[in-house]
């Protein structure tokens, strides 16, 4: 049946993701990681993985658990794995970061924490992939949207496997690789597949479907969307080849990275054109906060993809490349995620609270759950911080970066508070709130017992008639 119900643990994924984002921002303010440390130093790796896995991947996973079933009109497969997957992923990330901390000399612990953490992460992502792939393949035909997600999940698999391989090298257990050198040349490809493939490509695929809905825009024709997927897949295949090249005795250089990037950027250009068209052809004239707050994210993406290949080919310093990757990761992916979280959390909370009451009397609108314009001010602080922090990275000022990240932290903390207030229905007048025991819980949607309406199992086995 094309029924979609509320994903039980999506809010827990979002909560964990936001906690990791706040932690990463706090560490950046404390001066841990780049630019105070080198790009590939353990301190930076802690920060990068807190953002990439803790914040972006967990938020993406939570959103996919809710929206993949909705977008393919099939119930989520194996829903019982959602919570275990979350715990395993969190444990894996903490172990991995403890491993990096050991590598940095902050704590005394065996370096085997690194591959151990990677193993947990592999297991957690496998559980997640199992749920999503089974759900996607249960709907036939496989739609273009499903192909975006499946390709992204393939990239996640390669990213996690390559990361796990790196951890064996870093922990001194890379003997099985013989003379093959994977580090540091494999790092850009690992990052490209993770950010561009798993997080980027799926964000692109999901945004096509959700933006049509959120802005009441006409669905872009498949012939326009398909080149985006094909080009991105080609770029990601190049990145995969770059990762695998050392096994064939080939050393991929900057040109290889630039080639993969160039194809990805072409995909980004087509995607940007489509998103622009969606905004322009929308039937809903007033933009809601989630769509308004997505605009700076697309500007960050535009800047990042336009300048990154130039910076790589021109052998620009670490500062400029770091600034551009920062713009893509925290400006585009991070900003887009924060913006859509406001919509997703308010929509899901509304559905959980008011769907059973519809028809009995007036109910608030979804937008009524969000405090405006206050939420907009938090976004302004966040994006202001991102823009200034990127500039600080480009000109390599350590104190400037730390100060501007404080703006991001304040903006993020404000948005977290708003999301909690949405779950608590704080904006709704007390009389319009359901009784306390029926209100949404902060971290888990209420599990519902649903019986198919036409089916009375007992009476079939033992008919009275």
């Amino acid at each position: 049946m094309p029924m979609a119900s509320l994903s039980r643990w999506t809010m827990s994924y979002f909560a964990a993701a936001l906690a990791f984002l706040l932690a990463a921002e706090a560490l950046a303010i404390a001066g841990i990681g780049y630019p105070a440390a080198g790009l590939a130093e353990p301190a930076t790796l802690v920060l990068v993985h807190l953002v990439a896995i803790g914040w972006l991947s967990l938020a993406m996973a939570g959103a996919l658990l809710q929206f993949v079933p909705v977008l393919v009109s099939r119930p989520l497969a194996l829903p019982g794995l959602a919570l275990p997957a979350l715990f395993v992923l969190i444990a894996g990330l903490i172990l991995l970061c403890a491993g990096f901390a050991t590598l940095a000399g902050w704590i005394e612990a065996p370096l085997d924490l690194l591959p151990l953490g990677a193993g947990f992460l592999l297991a957690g992502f496998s559980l997640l992939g199992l749920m999503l792939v089974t759900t996607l393949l249960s709907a036939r035909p496989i739609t273009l949207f499903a192909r975006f997600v499946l390709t992204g999940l393939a990239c996640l698999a390669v990213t996690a496997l390559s990361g796990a391989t790196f951890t064996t090298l870093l922990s001194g257990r890379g003997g099985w690789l013989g003379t093959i050198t994977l580090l540091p040349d494999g790092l850009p490809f690992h990052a490209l597949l993770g950010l561009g493939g798993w997080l980027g490509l799926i964000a692109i695929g999901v945004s096509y479907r959700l933006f049509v809905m959120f802005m009441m825009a006409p669905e872009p024709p498949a012939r326009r969307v398909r080149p985006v997927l094909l080009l991105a897949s080609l770029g990601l295949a190049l990145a995969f080849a770059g990762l695998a090249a050392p096994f064939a005795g080939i050393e991929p250089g900057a040109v290889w990275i630039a080639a993969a990037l160039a194809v990805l950027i072409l995909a980004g250009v087509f995607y940007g054109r489509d998103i622009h068209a969606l905004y322009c052809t929308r039937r809903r004239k007033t933009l809601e906060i989630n769509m308004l707050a997505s605009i700076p994210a697309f500007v960050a993406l535009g800047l990042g993809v336009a300048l990154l290949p130039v910076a790589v080919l021109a052998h620009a310093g670490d500062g400029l490349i770091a600034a551009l990757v920062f713009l893509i990761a925290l400006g585009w992916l991070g900003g887009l995620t924060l913006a859509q979280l406001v919509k997703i959390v308010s929509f899901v909370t509304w559905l959980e609270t008011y769907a059973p009451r519809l028809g009995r009397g007036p109910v608030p609108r979804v937008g009524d759950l969000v405090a405006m314009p206050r939420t907009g001010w938090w976004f302004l602080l966040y994006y202001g911080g991102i823009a200034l922090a990127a500039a600080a990275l480009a000109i390599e000022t350590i104190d400037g970066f730390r100060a501007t990240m404080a703006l991001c932290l304040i903006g993020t903390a404000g948005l977290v508070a708003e999301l909690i207030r949405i779950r608590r229905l704080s904006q709704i007048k007390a009389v319009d709130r359901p009784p306390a025991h029926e209100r949404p819980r902060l971290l888990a949607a209420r599990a519902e017992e649903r019986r198919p309406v036409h089916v009375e199992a007992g009476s079939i086995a033992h008919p009275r008639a």
Partner: protein
Amino acid sequence: MSKPEASPIRELDVRPMLRSGEEPFQAIMDAVDALAPGESLRLVAPFRPVPLFSVMANRGFSASDRPLDDGDWEVVFSPVAGMQADAGLATGSSPAAVFWGDPVEELDLVDLEPPEPMVRILETLESMQPGDVLFALLAREPVFLFPELAKRQHEWAGNFDASGSAYRLLVRHGGGRAHV
């Protein structure tokens, strides 16, 4: 009743399960799910499984039954041509929709943003009588509406129009109401 000609048939004998006190419903549904398009299911049971007929009718199968010599019953459930594949109804739709009367309410909800179409449909249903039919035109498949319809015992049938740009939904009031 005529039996389907030359269509492949799968068999399921639920007598052993019932003898051992097991509940055969899930096994029957699994067998139905495993049918290839056009395939029929021959069910053997120790009684005439009347309630199953409507369940199967909702899934697009007609039933033809006959008593066996030993007091048991044989029922052949055959897919009704045109009911599912050809009518192109979305999964979960009630095939009985072809027999529903004319809609008493018609809603054009194409220009509304989710969840507004769901709000309007459920509000309208609240003012209708059991058996009344509502027709709604939507911009997309209302996936969050379906569980709510099911909980209120309303039946529905829907599909996209030929161009794929509008979703047509029929809902037959089943007697349920807002439940909180």
